[in-house]
C-alpha cells in the first residue's frame, strides 16, 4: 500500500494564490480605500458591478487562506506549538472558510 498523500497541496495552492494576489493588489487597495477613501456614491457605484464583485471575492477568499496557512505554520514553528497540530489547522482553515462564506454573502447581497 502506498502511504496516504497529504492534502497539503490544496492549501499550499490557496496560500500561494493568495500570497500572489495580496502582494499585487493589497498595498494599492489600502492606499486608495483607507488613506484616500472615495466618497460614498462613487464607491458604491464602482463596487456594484459583477466583475468587480467576483474579483473582490477571489481576492478576499485567497487572502484569507493565505493568512490561514501561513499563520498556522507560524504557530507551529515560531511558537513551537506543533503538538496542537490538528487544533491549529482546524482553527486557521475553519476561520478562513467561515469568513469566506461571509464575504460571499456580503458581496452577493451588495449593496
Amino acid at each position, binding site marked *: 500500500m502506498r502511504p496516504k*498523500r*497529504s492534502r*497539503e*497541496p*490544496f492549501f*499550499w*495552492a490557496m496560500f500561494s494564490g493568495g500570497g500572489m494576489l495580496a502582494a499585487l493588489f493589497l498595498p494599492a487597495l489600502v492606499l486608495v480605500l483607507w488613506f484616500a477613501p472615495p466618497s460614498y456614491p462613487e464607491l458604491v457605484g464602482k463596487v456594484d458591478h459583477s466583475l468587480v464583485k467576483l474579483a473582490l471575492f477571489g481576492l478576499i477568499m485567497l487572502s484569507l487562506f493565505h493568512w490561514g496557512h501561513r499563520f498556522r505554520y507560524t504557530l507551529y*514553528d515560531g511558537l*513551537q506549538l*506543533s503538538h496542537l497540530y490538528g487544533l491549529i489547522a482546524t482553527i486557521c482553515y475553519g476561520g478562513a472558510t467561515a469568513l469566506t462564506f461571509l464575504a460571499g454573502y456580503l458581496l452577493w447581497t451588495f449593496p
Partner: protein
Amino acid sequence: MAESITLQIQRYRPEEEEEPVWQSFEVPRHDEWMVLDGLNYIKDNLDGSLSYRWACRMGVCGSCGMLVNGEPVLTCATYLSELGGGRGPVRIEPLTGFPVIRDLVGDIGDFITKLQRIKPWIIRQEDKPLSQGEYLQTPEELALYQQYSMCINCMLCYSACPIYALEPDFIGPAVIALAQRYNLDPRDEGSEERGDVLSQHAGIWACTFVGECSAVCPKHVDPAGAIQRYKVTATAEWFKSVLLPWGKR
C-alpha cells in the same frame, strides 16, 4: 610563536563531564591557515584528545562542517585570519541539530537514514541489457539537475534549518535536493516512489522557506529552491489526481 589567535572550543567528554564546557587554545596565526589547520595544530601539539572529523581538507568530503562563531561552515574552507578581524577569539562548536557524541563530533545517523529513504540512485522500471551500452545524456539534460548533484552531504544546511531542529521528523534540505537530483534526471523513472516520501508533512510540507539552508550551502546547491520547486510539482500532481481520478494517480 610570533602572533597567535585564540580558539574557544566546545569540549564534551562524556566520561568526564555531563555538559559541554569551553576550552581555550592559543594557536599560531598564519594568513593562509584555515580553521581546520588550527584544530590540527591543537591535536598535534597541544591536546591529542580533541575529537573532530575531517578528511580531504579541500571542500569535497563534507565531513569538517562545524559551527564557527555561530555560523555553520566547512572548517577547511574558512580562513582563521578572516574571523573577528583576524584577532579572535574564534568560537568552534559542533553543528546544531545533531546530538553530540564527543567534542566536535555529532551523530549523523538520522541524516543517513533519511537519505536512504528517498532512494538516491537512478531507478529504472526496466534496465536495458548491457550490450546496448550506457545511457547517454546531452549537456542540456545534465543541466536539468547538475546543480543538485554538487551536494557533498556536509549537512551545513541541516544545521542552519530551524525546522529540522524543531521537528526531528523533517526529512531536511539536502535530502530533498538530492531527491530532485534524481527526479530531474531524464534517465530516472523513480520520481513516483520518491514522491511517497517527499509529499508528506515530514517531507516537503514542513518547510516554511526560511531559506538559510541555501545561504550556508558551500556548493550552491540551493536546497530551498529545490524544495519550492518540488512543492509546485507536488501541487500540480495533486490537482491532476483530483481532477483526473481515472488517470494513473
